[in-house]
């Protein structure tokens, strides 16, 4: 009697499942895959090669949350792109969409009324603080400081609620539209904003004590991820990363938009260029944002309320729209906007989000959908840091560098 084996592995090669082939690696160099499942890098993978525990090569592997925004932008009406693009960074929604709106306004050749400019800048700064706190929290937990994580996320709630008071939505406000903003400031907003500013200032002092001046944390941040000024310019890094390396560049200052040329604030610039300096830039920026918020609120309070939208659109709106505005302070989305045709033209606009500069290039052929929208988000430009700055550091420094550049995958992948 013979026994025949039905099924099961017959040869050694049958044991191999496709895609699990093993290959030998060179002596002493190991390839380590960090991510994409959140060991300090959600939605993104960094492939590093290590010699001992020194990284000799790093390759950022992005694209896990790519949502084809540029392509989708080409098949949707102009106005529908606003809620789409703000999905890049939901807690930073206004900052991300304002430059797109600016580009459209450049083609339309209109300028929003003063009140709309202040309202937009007000929300932009609230968003900036919320996004910085988010980044701070993630940074804290990356390098093992869970208190910072808890505190920053709890305090971010203050800013999120402030944004809700102003726009009606906690995140993804869809607030700026071509020619203006969607809502006027509510009556009780100024007190809330001033209270939040006082609270935030007090908290920043506590952040300094527990995190920035904490000797344990300082030891992990100081001198880590050093980017010299020249290299920073060459790599084209943006936002706090560039300003921590001594580059005096901020889109709000170098190409002022909205109300930024009227309010008084400073651009914090540090020369050290390491992870600690990048953390400090964020703290100083939050302080400046609080200043802008207070000034914007003062201005809005002392000027009479009017519809924060360009007359070109408002004059043609039906009476119901005006009634809704008088009653609720809300600019109901105008019907003409839904099918709005933008005259043929090309425009380029830039704006400063919390993580750095975002640029838009919009091309119109006179249709109601754009011919081309090009977006370059700050994290996409900062990703190059992984390749050029990380090698030479130890594996334990990688989370510090990652957290300090505040890399945000959904924004980088677009």
């Amino acid at each position, binding site marked *: 009697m013979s026994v025949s084996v039905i099924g099961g592995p017959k040869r050694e090669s049958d044991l191999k499942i496709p895609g699990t082939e093993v290959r030998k690696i060179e002596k002493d160099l190991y390839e380590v895959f960090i991510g994409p499942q959140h060991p300090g890098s959600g939605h993104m993978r960094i492939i590093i090669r290590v010699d001992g525990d020194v990284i000799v090569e790093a390759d950022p592997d*992005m*694209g896990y949350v*790519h949502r*084809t925004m*540029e*392509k*989708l932008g080409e*098949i949707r009406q102009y106005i529908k792109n606003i809620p789409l693009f703000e999905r890049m960074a939901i807690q930073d929604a206004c900052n991300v969409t304002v430059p797109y709106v600016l*580009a459209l306004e*450049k*083609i339309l050749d209109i300028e929003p009324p003063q009140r709309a400019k202040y309202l937009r800048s007000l929300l932009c700064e609230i968003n900036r603080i919320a996004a910085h706190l988010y980044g701070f929290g993630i940074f804290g937990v990356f390098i093992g400081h869970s208190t910072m994580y808890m505190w920053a996320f709890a305090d971010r709630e203050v800013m999120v609620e402030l944004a809700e008071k102003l726009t009606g939505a906690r995140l993804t406000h869809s607030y700026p539209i071509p020619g203006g903003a969607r809502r006027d400031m509510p009556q009780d907003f100024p007190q809330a904003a001033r209270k939040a500013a006082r609270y935030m200032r007090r908290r920043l002092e506590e952040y300094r004590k527990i995190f920035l001046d904490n000797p344990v944390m300082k030891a992990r941040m100081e001198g880590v991820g050093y980017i010299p*000024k020249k290299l*920073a*310019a*060459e*790599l*084209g890094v943006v936002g706090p990363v*560039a300003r921590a390396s*001594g*580059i*005096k*560049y901020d889109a709000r*200052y*170098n*190409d*002022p938009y909205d109300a*930024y*040329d009227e309010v008084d604030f*400073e*651009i*914090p*610039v*540090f*020369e050290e260029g390491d992870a600690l300096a990048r953390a400090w830039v964020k703290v*100083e920026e939050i302080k400046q944002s609080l200043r802008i918020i207070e000034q914007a609120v003062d201005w809005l309070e002392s000027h009479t309320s009017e519809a924060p939208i360009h007359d070109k659109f408002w004059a043609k709106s039906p009476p119901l729209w005006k009634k809704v505005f008088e009653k609720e302070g809300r600019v109901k989305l105008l019907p003409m906007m839904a099918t709005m045709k933008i005259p043929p*033209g*090309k*425009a*380029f*606009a*830039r704006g400063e989000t919390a993580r750095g*500069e975002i*640029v838009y*290039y919009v*091309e119109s052929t006179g249709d109601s959908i754009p*011919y*081309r929208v*090009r977006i*370059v988000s700050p994290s*996409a*430009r900062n*990703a*190059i840091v992984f390749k*050029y700055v990380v090698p030479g550091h130890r594996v334990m420094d990688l989370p510090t560098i990652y957290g300090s550049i505040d890399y945000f995958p959904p924004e980088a*992948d677009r």
Partner: protein
Amino acid sequence: MVEGLRFMKLSEEMVRVVIEKVKKELGDLVKSVEEGKGYISIKVPLNRLREAAVKLKNMGFDHVKSLTVTDYKKKGVFEVMYMASSYLDEELSRIIVSLTVEIDRNNPRMPSLSDIWTSVEFQEREVYEFFGIHFEGHPDLRPLLLVPDIADLKPLTKDFIVKEEPIFKS
């Protein structure tokens, strides 16, 4: 912390000065220099692109903000714009110049500028996967965001049409 920065709106005068500078520096390299909305467009022939890029970099345009490609299917060309600006020169940082070339849509090859502007390296990879443009001399030309089989479809060209669910379409 460095303080005391002053705001200055970009004036027409400042743009004109830069246009004159660019014209003088690039000389016969350029086909045309025009002022666009938010940028200055410098058109150059493809075979002199690298020369022009080196000259712009020496002028102080030290990084590229956006590598923008537009597909003009009817004309049969891709328009490639290197939108550069400056970090180290404060005056130039207010200006954006776009170094523009047109390349054949059916044979999309052009020299890489990543050795001149390191900041463009990842964006060239992005353009490679979305438009299929080959950058000759790029150190590491492979897809950045997409998986290779999707990148083969060249999703951002106008040939790629987004299919929508036909439920509400008769």
